[in-house]
């Protein structure tokens, strides 16, 4: 499971020896995040985001459990119970703002984590399972955040629930019954709010379980690294502790600074004022938009405004939106290049940045009303998004000529740090 040169766990204290025989949790920790886990020596700060995502999940679970002590999932009182948290509960405003902004921070770090994987080819063999489990976590996070956003029962909560459960009504024949089954009624109402609260409480713990699988799968081949070259021997690695506990600790400090700055100075920046108006089932807010982290997918949904072939616009939009995420499950097999890191992939690297720009463009379009030029821009953006994965990537990975690669991580690192050998990799 680890490299042969991993430092073995040797408990010295009698208590630790006793523990090791009965329930070897200290051994597990030592071999997973301690000196017993060798990690490539050259990880950069983009390798912080996994740990940060874990920290964000813990923040959500802790603040969430506290909120649940004061929140009431009933349409008659839900909105007021959130106001009660904000005004009356001791430090309630802090806990709620931390939970609200914690969700945004969670998505920021997860998006960076995902794009790190795309840039350095971490989704490729032997880490396909790590990637697949990551996509599962991403889907669960989206479901969790959506249901959480419904809980305050403001205008955006209500209409978000209406529109998102509306996706399911696009399914031919059984669509409407499925939607009513999800809502427990014809419109979002008390039954909906109650089940969403129950599931919003449950799903983070399911996510926790999948994260354990994700890390388990990761620890079999070990981490990828900025060169994308697999570890060959001991000099390519350093022990996780103290090297990466320190590096992750520093990253965690920066993350917390950004998080508290957002929470204290601009707690509503990423939210919508309309959600401070109680839900009204007879009037839709003039401009409904989802939370920022859903915007690119929302733009893809909105890009379909006309019936096409034998499928109507509504179903197209919904299929395309789900497909844009489901596509990620196939990524390890769409990219056939054996070279992982973009550092050595001159062509892929360009298309990677175009994809980043495209996703940002889609996010921007997702925010705009359903008018020109946004509709046409969403359509172009959506076409490009699919083209990237289904056309460009398979072709690029076949025709691209990778740059010369160093023989090992250590060679790459030394070439980078010895001035006279600066041209090392190219010469090799």
């Amino acid at each position, binding site marked *: 499971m680890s490299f042969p040169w991993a430092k073995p766990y040797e408990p010295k204290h009698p208590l630790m020896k006793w523990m090791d025989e009965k329930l070897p949790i200290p051994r597990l920790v030592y071999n997973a995040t301690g000196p017993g886990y060798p990690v490539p020596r050259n990880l950069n700060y983009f390798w912080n985001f996994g740990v940060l995502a874990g920290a964000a999940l813990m923040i959500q679970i802790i603040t969430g459990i506290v909120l649940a002590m004061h929140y009431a999932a009933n349409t008659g009182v839900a909105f007021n119970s959130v106001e009660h948290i904000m005004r009356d509960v001791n430090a309630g405003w802090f806990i709620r703002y931390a939970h609200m902004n914690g969700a945004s921070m969670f998505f920021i770090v997860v998006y960076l984590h995902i794009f790190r994987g795309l840039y350095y080819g971490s989704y490729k063999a032997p880490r396909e399972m790590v990637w697949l489990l990551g996509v599962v976590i991403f889907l669960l996070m989206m479901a969790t955040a959506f249901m959480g956003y419904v809980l305050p029962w403001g205008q955006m909560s209500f*209409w978000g629930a*209406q*529109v*998102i*459960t*509306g*996706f399911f*009504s*696009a399914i031919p024949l059984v669509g409407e019954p499925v939607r*009513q*089954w*999800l*809502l*427990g*009624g*014809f*419109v979002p*109402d008390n*039954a909906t709010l109650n*089940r969403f609260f129950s599931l919003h409480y449950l799903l983070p713990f399911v996510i926790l379980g999948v994260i354990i699988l994700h890390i388990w799968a990761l620890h079999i081949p070990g981490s990828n690294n900025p060169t994308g070259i697999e570890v060959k021997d001991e000099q390519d690695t350093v022990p996780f502790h103290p090297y990466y506990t320190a590096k992750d600790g520093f990253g965690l400090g920066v993350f917390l600074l950004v998080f508290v700055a957002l929470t204290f100075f601009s707690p509503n920046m990423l939210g919508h004022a309309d959600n401070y108006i109680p839900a009204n*089932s*007879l*009037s*839709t807010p*003039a*401009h*409904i938009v989802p939370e920022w982290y859903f915007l690119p997918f929302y733009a893809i*949904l*909105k890009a*379909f*405004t*006309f*019936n096409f072939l034998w499928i*109507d*616009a*509504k*179903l197209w*939009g919904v299929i395309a939106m789900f497909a844009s995420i489901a596509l990620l499950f196939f990524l390890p097999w769409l990219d056939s290049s054996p070279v992982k890191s973009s550092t050595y992939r001159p062509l892929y690297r360009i298309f990677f940045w175009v994809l980043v720009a495209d996703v940002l463009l889609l996010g921007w379009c997702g925010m705009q*009303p*359903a*008018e020109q030029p946004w*509709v046409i821009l969403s359509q172009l953006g959506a076409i490009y998004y699919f083209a990237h994965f289904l056309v460009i990537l398979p072709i690029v990975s076949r025709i691209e000529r990778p740059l010369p690669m160093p023989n090992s991580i250590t060679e790459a690192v030394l070439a980078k740090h010895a001035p006279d050998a600066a041209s090392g990799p190219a010469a090799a």
Partner: protein
Amino acid sequence: MASESELNAGIEDGVRRRDFINIAAVSFAGVGAVAVVLPLVNQMNPSADVLALSTTEIDISAIQPGQAIKTSWRKQPVFVRNLVEKEIAEAKAVPLSDLRDPQTIDERTKPGKENWLITLGVCTHLGCVPLGAAEGENKGDFGGYFCPCHGSHYDTAARIRKGPAPTNLVVPPYEFTSDTVVTIG
């Protein structure tokens, strides 16, 4: 090899008694699991109180030609619109082949009351409340309703004409209980 025949004692036609017991036990457990899952799935469906089909009475006497009101039935918004001659004529002038969800205005109103257009105010795309019922709201490119969520335009018979919605605004079941009162549901 000798023990093989001993192991297979009791075989008839290549089937061991143990195979039969295994299949029977697993199938029985499967039936039991399905029997338990069904109520667990079904509990999510609308409960009896939600289903209890309520009716709503609406007094339409105050709605002037060209005006509309918004009320609610089963917690869903309902539009009641008093069409003017021009709007009815416009709706009739459209060839059915131009429509995504072909229906005439007569099919969408009651005989002799074709100026009363009563529909749910629920966009058939993803369920927002379209604009156009209240004074001064955007009625869209076809003079009926406009859903700002993703840009669906409905005409003066509340039929979908442009945008992502697949079908016309739904006409709920209703009756004229008198000339000025409508019962929905």
